[in-house]
């Protein structure tokens, strides 16, 4: 059975590692980590993920700008993106993924069950 490919883009390696270990332990996900947003487009083109988990506040390139670049890329424009943000509260997102201005958001720290639920809803 083909595993779902997830690309996690976050400048914090501990965060990408945590997400990667948890999702891969479930068996149905193949996760690629990218901690340098400047390489994100190239990594995504090489990996061709089914879904991208993207941090908002990153050095060099802001998550929102990166998301726009992904949308503009002919190969990646259809790949769903879920933002992971520290700036929203779980009460604002009502404990689950929310859509703000056309983008999907999850509030950090996100729980594994919530993360998988959000991923599955976009596949």
């Amino acid at each position: 059975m083909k595993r779902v490919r997830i690309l996690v883009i976050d400048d914090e390696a501990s965060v990408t590692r945590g997400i990667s270990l948890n999702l891969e332990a479930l068996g149905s996900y193949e996760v690629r980590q990218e901690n340098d947003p400047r390489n994100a487009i190239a990594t995504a083109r090489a990996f061709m993920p089914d879904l991208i988990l993207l941090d908002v506040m990153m050095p060099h390139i802001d998550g929102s700008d990166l998301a726009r670049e992904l949308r503009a890329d002919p190969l990646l424009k259809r790949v769903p993106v879920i933002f992971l943000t520290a700036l929203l509260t779980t009460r604002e997102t009502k404990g689950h993924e929310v859509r703000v201005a056309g983008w999907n958001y999850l509030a950090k720290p996100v729980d594994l069950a919530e993360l998988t639920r959000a991923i599955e809803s976009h596949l």
Partner: protein
Amino acid sequence: MGALVTAIGRPSWHASLLEWLGRQGRASVAAGSLALVTAIGAVDYGTGSEVSVTLLYLMPVALGAWAGGRGVGVGMAGASALTWLGAGLLEPGAGGDPLVLAWNASTLAGMFALVALALAALRQSKANLEAAVAQRTATLQEEVLQRRRAEVRLQQVNADLHSTQLQLIEAAKMEAVGRMAAGVAHEVKNPLMTLGMGAGYFLQRRPAHADEAALLQDMKQAVGRASHIINGLLDFARPRPRQLAPADLNEVVDDALKLVRHQLATQKVTVQRQLQPGLPPLPLDRVRMEHVIVNLLTNAAQAMPGGGTVTVRTSMHAGGDRPPDQAPQIRLDIEDTGEGIPPEHLGRVFDPFFTTKPLGEGTGLGLSIVHRIVQIHGGGVVLANLSSGGACATVTFRSS
């Protein structure tokens, strides 16, 4: 005449008399003075040109000049001299030379006329002086009035400035707190996520010992609690745009009660619901107002660790503490049967980070957030002790 009697009865009767005379018409004064001249002439005729009687003629002259002005005074001088001459010529046994009498009469007329002119001028000067004083007094009074108005305006401007300054300080403070909160959120939530994910990962691997699993669960809960505190800080610091829509306060109260029903039951807290039907709709951000009510209910429940009763009451008061033409006030009271709030804490309960709960159990932001949300709605919130024991949180709104 009655006024004249009253005037004479006063201690400063002469001043009052002169004042009264001054108010009489010129014709009345002339008639009165002429009558006095006639009366003095009669006395003069009877006494035989005594010098003392001659001096009496000064009375109508002075009266006429003072009360009737220059013309009446000079007229009385002439009338007095003529009367004096008549009395001198006609009195019994008069043997004087008529020419000498006439010469004396003309001299008398001249002297009386001079007295009349002097008195009339004096009276005019007095009137001019009084008018100038009255005008100056009126000007001064107007200046005093204007100065008072200016003072009131200045006080108002000062009060406005003070209020604006406080608002600016508050806004600057909140902006700083907001920046800090955003920074803290970013710096703390990422490590929390790492910890949470780490604990979750090891839990997935099914630890061999139950203690290890319990420890990992504790770690996940600790992450949840820390996250809750950071979220509270973000909530407090960030005034999100209001989403006001007309809402029935009673419905919002019921929705909030549904959210905490289970928690209250677990804490052996009974809810008494006393909601006044037919309240006018209020412009509310329902989610935020639910948050306020849930917070106040939770607070009330925490004030009764052994259980008790929470009374939730809504009511409408015409005008409230404002004038009767103001919109009615809608009130929400949440009362508990706990031990009340220590008086020394009453003034600080809405301060950010103020808490009486043991370390690690409260963020100290709950009531600050309540205060802030109510403030954003243009309402007010107070927490007070009840005379019957317990405390009451009162939220007030102005119905539009």
